[in-house]
């Protein structure tokens, strides 16, 4: 299936991720923060808490709550988008929370909330993946107990070809069967925490896509790990 002759618009190999950049401690006022970028997609995540849940009626006396907010800044895309939440950002906020929840251990923080704010500074597809990657690093940086790290990548199906980390040009692919975008999140130990799919794909291709994502997430994990270890620098 991997067609060596396949040409991606930006000349990448089919399993090549765009250049990744990661940094922690970018928001001085937050309890933990991180920046993560895939090429031109840049996400910043800030974590506050654990703190007391407000409004009080949302408090969960059994365990702590993780509250994610995904937001695309109005200047992040070519045509200005209306600031504030919309249908899409509400969905992604929810999804991000679900992708992160299996690894964070906030059972011992009853009535409390961990707030994660994800802002997309610049969008070039795969923003939710960049957001999840940044959020995972920010949560670790905030000292939230976690079982593992998570890394997220989007797998695209362009016509019949699977590619890793789609960009905007590929997302709008119209040749053949068109584009299918599959964001996938893995823990470092190889467990899947999130997968989304809307589009057409066969079972066999989906399995291939998951294996491809597993491999790519390892690469992303190394970038996240390096960024977290570099902080402050033990000079």
């Amino acid at each position: 299936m991997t067609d060596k002759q396949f040409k991606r618009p930006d000349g990448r190999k089919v399993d090549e991720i765009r250049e990744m950049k990661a940094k922690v401690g970018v928001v001085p006022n937050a309890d933990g923060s991180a920046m993560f970028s895939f090429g031109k997609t840049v996400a910043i995540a800030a974590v506050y808490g654990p703190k007391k849940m407000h409004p009080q009626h949302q408090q969960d006396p059994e365990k702590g709550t993780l509250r994610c907010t995904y937001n695309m800044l109005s200047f992040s895309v070519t045509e200005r988008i209306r600031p504030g939440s919309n249908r899409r950002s509400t969905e992604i906020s929810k999804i991000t929370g679900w992708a992160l929840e299996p690894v964070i251990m906030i059972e011992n923080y009853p009535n409390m909330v961990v707030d994660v704010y994800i802002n997309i500074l610049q969008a070039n597809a795969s923003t939710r993946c960049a957001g999840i990657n940044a959020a995972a690093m920010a949560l670790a940086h905030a000292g939230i107990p976690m079982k593992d790290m998570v890394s997220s990548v989007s797998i695209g199906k362009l016509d019949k070809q699977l590619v890793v980390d789609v960009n905007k040009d590929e997302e709008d692919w119209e040749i053949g069967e068109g584009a299918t975008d599959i964001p996938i999140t893995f823990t470092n130990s190889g467990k899947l925490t999130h997968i989304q799919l809307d589009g057409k794909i066969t079972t066999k291709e989906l399995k291939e896509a998951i294996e491809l994502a597993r491999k790519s997430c390892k690469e992303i994990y190394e970038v996240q790990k390096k960024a977290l270890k570099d902080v402050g620098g033990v000079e």
Partner: protein
Amino acid sequence: MTDRKIIIPGEVIAKGNEYLPGEGTEKQGDEIVAMRYGLAEESNKLVKVIPLSGVYQPRRRNVVIGKVENITFNGWIIDIGTTNNAFLSLTEVPRYVNKDELEEVMNIGDMVIAKIWGINKRGIDLSIKSKGLGKISEGIIIKINPNKVPRTIGKEGSMINLIKEESGCDIIVGQNGLIWIKGDKVENELFAKKAILFVTEKSFVSGLTEEVKKWFEEVKGK
């Protein structure tokens, strides 16, 4: 002292059944796995993670510095920078206080040095029934990152004693990151503050006490 290095969640710190999991770690099979981000430290086969960042986690017997937020009919609500506000009960004050005269002992906005004597689901209970605790009436208070408090105190108080000696000030470090400095001259207090901020900036350097000694010599030489 063993080599300390930064560890991220899910990373294996040590392998082998002889190791014991300490704070911030968990045993999975024969591996000790980190459950939070911080510095890994091993002593006597006990492996633990020292937090580098994040909010202050209150513990029993911690000495903290807080601000009086509110007065209730039988005590004071104190803000010590944690998620739950702390409560200082009337009975934990070392002298008799009339219930109508609570604000005469401590009013809203006053700073107080207290000790945590209990943590439960409802909140944190404080006490000032010990030497050196109570309302602060003079001196200055500075705030540092709570994760840098252990560094500021040093091993068995080596760092803080050095700063006390050099500046001639009385210093109490609250575990929640607030530090009270009291000297006979404002210059001395500001000097101590400068020294503490120097320590927090350099908190990654090993052999910091020596470094600070050198810094003192430099500053005094001027």
